[in-house]
């Protein structure tokens, strides 16, 4: 049985000529697509609670959300392994070394020396670590090679089977067509 986690009812912001209606329940896999400026980031901000809606209502259960932003937000000049261990420690979770191995992340290197793709993988691992009911990913495929995309999709499928709701905003919705239950075009 699915439980509704977040419901947006005609929710919107004053600067956007658009209202959002969306119900996110446990086990959902939702893909959001749209052209630039269509309101994808605003919708994710409303889901994450980063911004308050000016119109409509948002009902949310007090749940843990894990969020991967589009922009790179890693602390530089920190050892990759130390950073991931710290994230796991504060989230009181264990690092998934299998995922790290599959992603081929060079753990011994400092974050600032990593390539864009590897930094994205580090961000993904830090986001996927923990215990959460909803996973929000903004352009998760940015900079990933095809092997990493396969690994990520496999991991997301497993998470989704464990009833974790997943919301993905992407310009490449076709990459998730085998997993998505709902595709929202803005």
């Amino acid at each position, binding site marked *: 049985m699915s439980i509704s986690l977040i419901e947006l009812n005609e929710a919107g912001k004053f600067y956007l000529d658009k209202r959002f209606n969306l119900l996110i329940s446990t086990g959902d896999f939702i893909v959001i697509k749209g052209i630039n400026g269509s309101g994808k980031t605003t919708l994710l*901000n409303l889901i*994450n*609670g*980063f*911004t*308050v809606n000016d119109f409509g209502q948002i009902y949310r259960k007090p749940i*843990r*959300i*894990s*969020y*991967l*932003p589009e*922009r*790179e*937000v*890693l*602390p*530089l*000049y*920190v*050892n990759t392994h130390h950073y991931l261990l*710290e*994230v796991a*420690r*504060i*989230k009181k979770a264990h690092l998934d070394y299998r995922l790290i191995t599959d992603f081929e992340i060079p753990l011994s290197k*400092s974050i600032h020396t990593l390539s864009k793709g590897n930094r994205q993988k580090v961000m993904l691992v830090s*986001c996927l670590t*923990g215990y*959460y009911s909803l996973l*929000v990913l903004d352009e998760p495929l940015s900079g990933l090679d095809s092997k990493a995309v396969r690994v990520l999709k496999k991991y997301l499928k497993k998470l989704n089977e464990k009833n974790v709701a997943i919301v993905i905003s992407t310009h490449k919705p076709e990459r998730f067509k085998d997993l998505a239950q709902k595709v929202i075009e803005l």
Partner: protein
Amino acid sequence: MIKYIINGIFTHKRRKIVLGYLLLFACSLFLVLKTDTTAMEQLLHKEYEIYHYNNKLFEFLKFFMPLSIGMLVMEHDQGHIKILVTYFGRKRIHLAKIVSYILVVTILFYFTYLVYVLYAKFFTSFYTTKILIHDEFLYVYLSSLIFLLYLLLCIREKNKLLIFVFVIVNILYSMIQERIIRIELFYLIPLTSSLFKTYKYTLWYQVGYVTLLVLINIHISKKEHLTI
């Protein structure tokens, strides 16, 4: 969470910068406190030497503390901390951030106090435990916390260079307070000045002000629009 934030402040590279900065601070403080008078003269004019020793230190701190706090707080609005808001909640993250920065400022003060005591003990002839002024340190410490909390309230990633304006305003404000003695100024922003520290309730007013700023910080963080 506090450990995570402090590690974020003092990354491997920044740790070296901070260490270098502390060494520079210690050297500057040594130069400021340095006196050319002989040991005999120091003993002869003990009161005068003690007065000047303490005065020089607190004048130095008036410039050094806002600058140091400004440098520490510059990177407080980091994205990797902000994204944790969805996982832990705004209140917990913001409270942890405030506590972390207060801890860092406290450690900075402890270091300053150490230099102040050790210099007097090993390089002057007038040192006795009686020369140490603890209450004045407390006033400067609380003033620094007020400045820190204003920075946490106003400075964000997109406007972080504004921090230098705050530092300059803080230094100018301290200088103005020494010349234009107006109690309204002190009520508005109770940074320590030589007059107001003699008032009976200055300390409690500053403690209350710090508490209020913490509460305002938490309240504003609840509704703040977060951008990553």
